[in-house]
């Protein structure tokens, strides 16, 4: 503990950081809660005085009643539940593989790390190009020409093209592209964490396993995974938190319409919902949605922590 005489000094050193946190983090959080519980709150209308807003849960009711909200919630949860396990598993396998090779490790590490330092919107546009179909649907003689590399590959192997993201594409085709994008984008951070964890695992456990003639898959599941479990738990929890905030990937691939041309908004997520509400100056509704999202993330994280209590060996 700092001696009481010295305490004012400590506070002075902390002051700049505290001031910034108060202004840009603490106050907005308080304000969000306040706005969420003021019915129909909107900054545009608030200039006349805030007394005109009644206190109540009307914003939450409205949010829940929106058809959009259900779509957004469903998309968010689906993307989370599908991508987090896949990306975690893939990251684990890649990290183990990287840890086991010597030549080219640095090069491969760099390649796997690229998505982390690349702009998400740019990646989204590249993905859109990869899964694209250029041509026209709905003229009298439909001329469809595939130029997206993914469809080119499918056709090269004798398959027929898939309408991934264009006008008339199916929901699961869209989701498929999104899932690939999100998984790929989520890999580098997870690989980095898991590789770091692997490198701090005592090599002797592996030598001991070798002496005991342990098959490889058993080494992975019975030794590597339990020893890495703190890192895996960390990666899964942060993965879910990040997953519930998914938005940029959808803008990156589908643009502002958040869906193929015939079904705009179909792939919207919770963050998108909040953003839309803000754009329409419904700050009250946006705040309520933000609090709901916060509640969901909190709940999922608590469940995660509870599960990891039994499975994680520190």
């Amino acid at each position, binding site marked *: 503990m700092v001696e009481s005489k010295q305490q004012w000094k400590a506070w002075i050193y902390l002051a700049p950081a505290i001031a910034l946190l108060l202004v840009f983090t603490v106050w907005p959080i308080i304000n969000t809660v306040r706005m969420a519980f003021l019915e129909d709150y909107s900054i545009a209308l608030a200039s006349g005085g805030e007394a005109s807003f009644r206190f109540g849960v009307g914003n939450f009711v409205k949010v829940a009643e929106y058809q959009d909200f259900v779509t957004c919630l469903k998309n968010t949860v689906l993307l989370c539940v599908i991508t987090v396990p896949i990306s975690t598993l893939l990251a684990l396998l890649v990290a183990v593989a990287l840890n086991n090779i010597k030549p080219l490790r640095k090069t491969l590490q760099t390649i796997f790390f690229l998505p982390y330092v690349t702009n998400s919107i740019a990646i989204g546009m590249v993905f859109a190009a990869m899964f694209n179909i250029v041509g026209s649907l709905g003229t009298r003689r439909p001329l469809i020409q595939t130029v997206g590399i993914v469809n080119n590959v499918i056709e090269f192997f004798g398959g027929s093209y898939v309408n991934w993201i264009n006008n008339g594409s199916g929901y699961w085709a869209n989701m498929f592209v999104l899932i690939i994008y999100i998984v790929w984008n989520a890999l580098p951070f997870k690989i980095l964490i898991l590789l770091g964890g692997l490198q701090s695992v005592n090599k*002797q456990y592996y030598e001991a396993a*070798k*002496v005991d*003639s342990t*098959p490889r898959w058993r080494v992975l599941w*019975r030794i590597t995974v339990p020893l890495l479990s703190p890192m895996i738990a960390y990666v899964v929890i942060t993965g879910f938190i990040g997953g519930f905030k998914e938005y940029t990937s959808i803008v990156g691939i589908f643009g502002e319409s958040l869906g193929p041309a015939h079904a705009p908004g179909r792939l919207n997520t919770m963050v998108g919902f909040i953003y839309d509400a803000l754009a329409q100056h419904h700050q009250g509704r946006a705040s309520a949605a933000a609090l709901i999202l916060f509640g969901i993330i909190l709940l999922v994280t608590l469940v995660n922590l509870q599960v990891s209590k039994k499975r994680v060996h520190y």
Partner: protein
Amino acid sequence: MKIVLQNLTKIFPSRNKKSDEEVIAVNNFNFEIPDGKLIGLLGPSGCGKSTTLYMISGLQKPTSGKIFFGDDDVTELSTENRGIGLVFQNYALYPHMTVKQNILFPLQNLKGADKMTKEQMLERAYQAAKLVQIDQLLDRKPSELSGGQQQRVAIARALVKMPRVLLLDEPLSNLDARLRLQTREEIRRIQQETKITTVFVTHDQEEAMSISDMIVVMKTGVVQQIGKPQDVYDDPANLFVAKFLGTPPINVFEGRVQDGMLYIGEDAVLPIKGVENQPVTVGIRPEGFIVDENGSLKCKPVNVEVMGRDVSVVSTHGASLNPFVRSIVDADNRIDVGSGVVRYAIKPHKIFIFSKKTEERIYFEVK
């Protein structure tokens, strides 16, 4: 299962590319380890003893030479297929498994004809645990055990699959002094009960001497001497071995052989024959001194340490290569430190002479 090491050599390439200094960790090691014996590999750190052990285990590949288990050449065989048990220096117990799971682990890996049912595995694990007396601790995690208990779990894990060979890498170095004494007796007992050929590595000569059937003394990758502990102690092949074995350590003096007489400094200590005139290094075991008024070796006593039955006399001598000459004599001798001189006669079989140049032993006959 006997183990034969044939011209075993391990060279580590230099790390620094600029210099091509290779490190010869083990140099041309030949030894046949008899079946069912306990062998101690002994030497200071960096002498190649652990490398030798790891080559027997297969975790390191020899640069040249061959290893046989019985009549099978296992040089190219990977660790998994050698059927060895290995106890690591820091035990390498899987921290996330209980003691029981740790011991069961090697059994669960068995394939084909060796595959066991759950009951058989539990039975075997229980037997192994009982052998090392940890059957009360089966549901604990390694972190909940003391060092000595962890050590026993590691041995149980190595023994449970009935290995052909048991290897122990500095098994006692992490234990406190009392536990070390206890555990080394334990290792001896377990080895004699199981009759598994066992090789263990240590830098502690006392440990190696006390429990091994045979010891191998190594220095910078070269085997110095192989033999029964007492034989190696009584008959060291060179100065290094003589200095390395024994507590308190051997007393070393500058000396010379001149006209059939061995001199330490100017003291003519022993008439000998069969050795040419030359400067030599003389080693005398602490128990080789006899306090004698007419003794030829004159030392200046500094201190007498009473140990009950014996006393340890600390003295100085001009030709001594150690700071002090330490002798262990019967407590009946009354040594007067104040008199400034103590005279010793030397037991001839406790005195060794070594070439000053090569440090090899020079054998002599007493005249």
